């Protein structure tokens, strides 16, 4: 599973890294540090990853199986 994070859409609400701190973290400006990239989801973290994507108010995170 991967999370594809759209840099253009990320507005720095911080819901993803607040709800999945083991998976995602903020940059200095409050955007998710991994924006514009695709994050590999470690085995066992699939639920956290789906939650993180679903919490995003901008729908900036796509879950790729």
């Amino acid at each position, binding site marked *: 599973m991967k999370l594809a994070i759209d840099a253009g*859409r990320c*507005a720095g609400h911080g819901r993803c890294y607040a709800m999945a701190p083991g998976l995602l973290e903020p940059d*200095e400006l409050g955007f998710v540090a991994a924006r514009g990239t695709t994050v590999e989801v470690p085995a066992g973290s699939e639920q956290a990853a789906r*939650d993180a994507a*679903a*919490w995003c*108010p901008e*729908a900036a995170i796509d879950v790729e199986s």
Partner: protein
Amino acid sequence: MRAQSGVWGRVEEGNVTQEQVIAGTSRSGCPVVRLDTHRDRPVGERAAELNALRETAPISWDAQRECWVLTLARHVREVFQDPETFTNDSITPGDPNPAYKWIPSNVNPPLHVQYRQILNHAFGPAPVARIEERTREYCRMAIDEVVETGHCDYVSAVGGVFPTRVFLELVDLPWEDAPLFVDWTETIFDGFFGSPEALQAVAKVTDYFVELIADRRRAPRDPEHDFTSHLLRSEVDGRLLPDEDVLNIYNQLVLAGLDTVKSALSYSLLHLATTPADRHRIVEDPALIPVAIEELLRAYPLVMEGRKLSRDVDFHGVPMRAGEMVMLVLPAAMHDPEQFERPDDVIIDRQRNNHLAFGGGPHRCLGSHLARMEMRVGLEEWHRRIPDYHLDCDLADVIERGGQRSLRSLPLAWTPGG
């Protein structure tokens, strides 16, 4: 739409109130309404009417402000995510050509992001985390004042007090000046923006910061420890910020950040005071508070944000013209059943709560990290000291002020000592 009880008041099935729809008129197929948002109302009444408006007419035209009224969650998100069409030239519906300029709210991308970067020096997640301890101290100070008496007006004693001290601390100003700002912001937001008293209070805020800026120009301080000095040393498009920009930034911070946090805390306490089951859950498991805050933000959005069209556009079948404004009715949109299950119920541990109470897109509220931290600390500290309290008046007597959503007062009572 089923009738609601509790703080939402009663809603007639599918009907908007008589006041709202000017019968027999329409604009481009949309009903014409006259939204009343200036009067004091019993809490929940206005929100219930806006919910009903959403069910009747997703898009309508407000004859009072002469702007489009959007109430669907997906329309609101679409507008936030299209700053080229829906600009921040004005964000006040009804005032398409404001005399003032807020920075960064009245600045469009791409210039806008440079201001945000400067301001993240104080409002980003890291500086906000550094100020959490002090926030807790200021919150405890406010609660200490009332805990032994067994009653207080939460709005004036706590909710309006510690966030103001925190704001001043954040921008390296004396927290003792808090009462001045409490007084000025109360006046500015009481009623509507253009009143003589409001303008006078705005002038006082401006005077305070004019003096501050002049002082820091005369005697600059270390920008790492003095936010004003940091602003005066910052550049946009390769040029140092002029005094006017710094002033406009401070005006914005005061106007955007104080009344809102006070209100968000107040609605949260109102809900918890009148919903013992949810209050008990928070007391038993304070780790629930962050998720609970998201639901309280979704349930009680405060802001009716505006955008101004830069070009003609067909917006889902409605022809909108350049120069017109749209009003984004967050209270209705965040109760949109298309986006939220059981939207009018407060589900205190609601998951996957992707609300837009802080707005969205590039202008997502700069203070959202700070506000969330203040709300978390505020709820933690209050419930630690005073786990059992109730509303000290009838719900029908809790008044929501006109203008930006806020409670006039929130009388709470508990056993003295907590």
